[in-house]
């Protein structure tokens, strides 16, 4: 098989279009505002909202799966029960960031602010 064919240009162009579309989306519709409240989802269900700094153990089926540390502005998890500890490696997240732990089906993110609409 050939190393490079003229048709490969279509693949590269398609990838560029997809990557640029993501960037365009991020800088237009994706430019959301976030509050300083954390939302914790397990299996797609909101189980906890946190707005005060502190250390919070997170439970799934009555077993502790991780511990969330929130300093009021940033958040991270420690002591996760998953094998790869990817959620721990993500480190501190700021508003707009997410901590995702696939083995524990856990998502932690900052709550999106509601739009400040002004009416006459």
């Amino acid at each position, binding site marked *: 098989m050939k*190393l490079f064919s003229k048709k490969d240009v279509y693949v590269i162009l398609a990838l560029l279009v997809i990557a640029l579309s993501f960037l365009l989306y991020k800088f237009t519709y994706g430019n959301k505002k976030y509050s300083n409240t954390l939302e914790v989802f397990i299996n797609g269900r909101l189980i906890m909202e946190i707005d005060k700094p502190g250390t919070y153990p997170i439970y799934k089926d009555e077993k502790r799966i991780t511990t969330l540390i929130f300093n009021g502005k940033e958040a991270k998890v420690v002591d996760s029960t998953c*094998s790869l500890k990817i959620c721990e490696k993500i480190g501190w997240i700021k508003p707009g960031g997410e901590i995702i732990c696939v083995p524990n089906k856990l998502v932690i993110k900052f709550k999106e602010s509601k739009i400040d609409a002004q009416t006459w």
Partner: protein
Amino acid sequence: MVTALTAVLIAVASGIYFVENLIPFPLPVGRWGFSNSVVLFYAANFPLKFSITVAAGKTLIGAIFSGRIFSPPFFMGFFGSIAAAIVETMLFRFKFGYVGASIAGSAVNNLVQMIIGAFLIKSRYIFSFLPLFLIIGSISALANVYIAKTFEKIWRELQ
């Protein structure tokens, strides 16, 4: 001959799959995916059933050795690899080159992994990793082209 080669290369790919966990990756999530070079080599030179066998085999054996069998990341990798094998084989049939097939395979692999991940955690937020994965995936896709071409050269010499 092809069956023996498949067995050997599944073992090689599983070894790469296991060892590449130790290679530093610029993101906290993910891996380089160099074991997909074996799938790319098969997609270029053999029928679809062989590339799917290699994709499934290397993910299964690699996951057994890393203790991740039937875990959510295993399913993400398993279906991602098989999707890449199908797309790469199809593109080679339509006379695309190694570079195009590898980049497309990498993109499809990442996209399918995100879809499976989003389905497992019931959240769309996993897609926030996709743009970076597409970019880093393209870099490892080019490295995979070099490795797969080396496999092809050795295969031609053996013949």
